[in-house]
């Protein structure tokens, strides 16, 4: 029987339900704050989501400051005599190669430890002591050219991560041979990105996306509560995407032969040099690695690029919580099993992709 | 089972089915949807089921598709596979309905047969051409199955009653 009381009760319940639904689903109080800075030779963009715009701005500023700090510590190309040179641990380490151990900051020591760990794990594919070889190629400099065999051989002798001695107790680094040079190009950006992400992981931040020139790290969700979707560049057509992948509390880094290269005749020489041969690694066109830590993603994207596609995939499958997608030099798209439902590869005539 | 009378009549059904299959294949299609046919050949399948049973119905269906495709020249092609799947599935459906659900008249059975024939064809087509988008045609094919099934059922009923009068079933 519908009494007045019952009617009132029902009306109240309905109003309650509607308000709950409205509050929960429709009314979205999430704000976005986006910042951009030129860092580490690239444009870094940080987008944060949360309820308090002021807080977002402040935290983003902190994240950038942290990245700048890492940049200063790892900058190899600072001019001697400048304050930047004194600030850079890497410059000091390289200067004292063959001479004496150098005391470094916690962050740089952590980076070097990580590098050593992955030098072993990737059976030498990732080697930060590749500096001398990169220098004889001269990428980015006006005198970039294919080095002579003699020069390359001499430079290659200096490449061996085992000749880098780390003393954990004193936090020092010693490069045993004179002329050794460490180059953190394959890890510094990733490390900086991860440090920034750690800072952003605070109360009040419901989501964030850091994009350091293609080194991506996401946190939480963006405004509409959908997972992040990251596009993968087509290695041979910069106006198109190869596909896209879902990312959740992870980092995504891509190494490609189209970032920095020069042509000599018909051959393309790019900047990802193999520590084994001293020449640019030629079996892959691009490798995308997805894993939680951005520094590790950076390391692995370089290492897997240098390895053969088979070895790269095998290593990626072995490593926990790590996925990878490769585009081989033969234009074949391969990826680890874990990406099966997370990646969307766009059909193309140019590439072979086996969906099974 | 192998009585001469049955054998002769059975062969007639197969011949008739084949002829109808070929005839329909060359008819121009009224609607722009693949697979929309009158389904006249199903009349013989239906008769076979009502007169003899499931096994005979299946045999007639398979034979008429086989022979018909052979004559048209589409043996082992995509449309052959589609027709075969459709015919087999609809025969099964019709036989099962006839045997177990007495509530349906021959009209209902025929309509169910026509609809399942179309669905079966679509399933095979989507498998062979590797696309799910062909199911875009599903609603139309299902609905069109009703009038075509009704027509073939009606004709089958007339034929069946005639045959009964002639005491041939």
């Amino acid at each position, binding site marked *: 029987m519908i009494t007045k009381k019952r009617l009132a009760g029902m009306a109240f319940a309905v109003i309650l339900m509607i308000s709950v639904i409205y509050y929960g689903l429709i009314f979205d109080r999430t704000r976005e704050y986006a910042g951009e800075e030129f860092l580490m030779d690239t444009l870094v*963009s940080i987008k944060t989501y949360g309820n308090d715009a002021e807080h977002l701005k402040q935290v983003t500023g902190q994240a950038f400051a942290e990245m700048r700090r890492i940049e200063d510590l790892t900058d190899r190309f600072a001019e001697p005599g400048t304050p930047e040179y004194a600030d850079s641990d890497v410059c000091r380490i390289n200067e004292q190669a063959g001479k004496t151990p150098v005391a470094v900051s916690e962050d740089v020591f952590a980076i070097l430890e990580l590098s050593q760990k992955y030098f072993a794990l990737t059976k030498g594919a990732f080697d930060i002591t590749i500096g001398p070889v990169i220098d004889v190629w001269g990428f980015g400099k006006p005198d970039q050219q294919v080095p002579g065999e003699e020069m390359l051989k001499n430079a290659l002798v200096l490449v061996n991560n085992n000749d880098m001695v780390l003393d954990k107790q004193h936090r020092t680094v010693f490069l045993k041979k004179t002329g050794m040079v460490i180059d953190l190009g394959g890890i510094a950006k990733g490390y900086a990105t991860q440090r920034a992400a750690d800072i952003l992981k605070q109360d009040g931040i419901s989501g964030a*996306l850091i*994009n350091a020139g*293609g*080194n*991506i790290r996401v946190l939480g969700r963006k405004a509409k509560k959908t997972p*992040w*979707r*990251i*596009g*993968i*560049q*087509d*290695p041979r057509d910069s106006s*198109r*995407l*190869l596909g*896209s992948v879902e990312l959740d509390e992870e980092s*995504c880094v*891509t190494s*490609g032969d189209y970032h920095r290269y020069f042509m000599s005749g018909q051959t393309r020489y790019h900047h990802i040099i193999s520590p084994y041969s001293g020449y640019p690694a030629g079996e892959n066109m691009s490798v*995308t690695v997805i894993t939680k830590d951005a520094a590790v993603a950076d390391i692995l994207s370089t290492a897997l690029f240098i390895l053969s596609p088979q070895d790269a995939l095998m290593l990626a499958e072995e490593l926990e919580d790590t996925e990878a997608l490769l585009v081989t030099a033969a234009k074949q798209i391969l990826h680890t099993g874990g990406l099966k439902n997370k990646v*969307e590869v*766009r*059909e*193309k*005539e140019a590439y072979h992709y086996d969906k099974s | 089972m192998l009585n001469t009378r049955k054998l002769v009549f059975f062969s007639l059904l197969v011949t008739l089915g084949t002829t109808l299959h070929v005839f329909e294949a060359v008819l121009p*299609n009224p609607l*722009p*949807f*693949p697979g929309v046919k009158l389904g006249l050949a199903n009349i013989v399948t239906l008769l076979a089921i009502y007169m003899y049973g499931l096994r005979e119905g299946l045999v007639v269906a398979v034979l008429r598709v086989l022979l018909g495709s052979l004559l048209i020249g589409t043996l082992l*092609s*995509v*449309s052959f596979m*589609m027709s075969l799947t459709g015919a087999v599935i609809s025969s099964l459906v019709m036989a099962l309905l006839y045997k177990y*659900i007495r*509530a*349906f*008249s021959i*009209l*209902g059975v025929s*309509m*169910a047969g026509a*609809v399942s024939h179309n669905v079966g064809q679509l399933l095979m*087509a989507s498998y*062979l*051409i*590797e*696309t799910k*988008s*062909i*199911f*875009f045609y*599903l*609603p*139309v094919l*299902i*609905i069109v*199955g*009703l009038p075509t099934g009704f027509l073939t059922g009606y004709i089958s009923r007339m034929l069946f009653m005639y045959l009964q009068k002639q005491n041939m079933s």
Partner: protein
Amino acid sequence: MTRADKNLIISVFLVGLVLYFVLPLFTETGLKKTQAIIKQEGKIVKTVPLTENESSRFTLQGKNGPFTVETQGGHIRILESTCPDKFCVKRGWISSPGETIICVPYEVIIFFDTESPVDAITG
């Protein structure tokens, strides 16, 4: 006609009707289309860029003969074909992601390549 027959008609008709409205919802529309793809016997044979003011026309080889495809702006269709039924020609123009043109005898499908919107690009 029995009662069961009539019920059958009504049920099937309703199912068909529902499917007619529901099926399009399951196809991914609302995604941006980037190009049209033509697949023949399971393999991609041609990708067609769809630029706003450009039209094109080209001919491909089917099993029994050629067929001609035409594009205009963001639309594509099979203009003529030597296939037996020519349903593909009768299909006409398609323009939204999810729509397809299928030629069963030639095992040809034409559809749009779409991309989910991305938040950032790696590479």
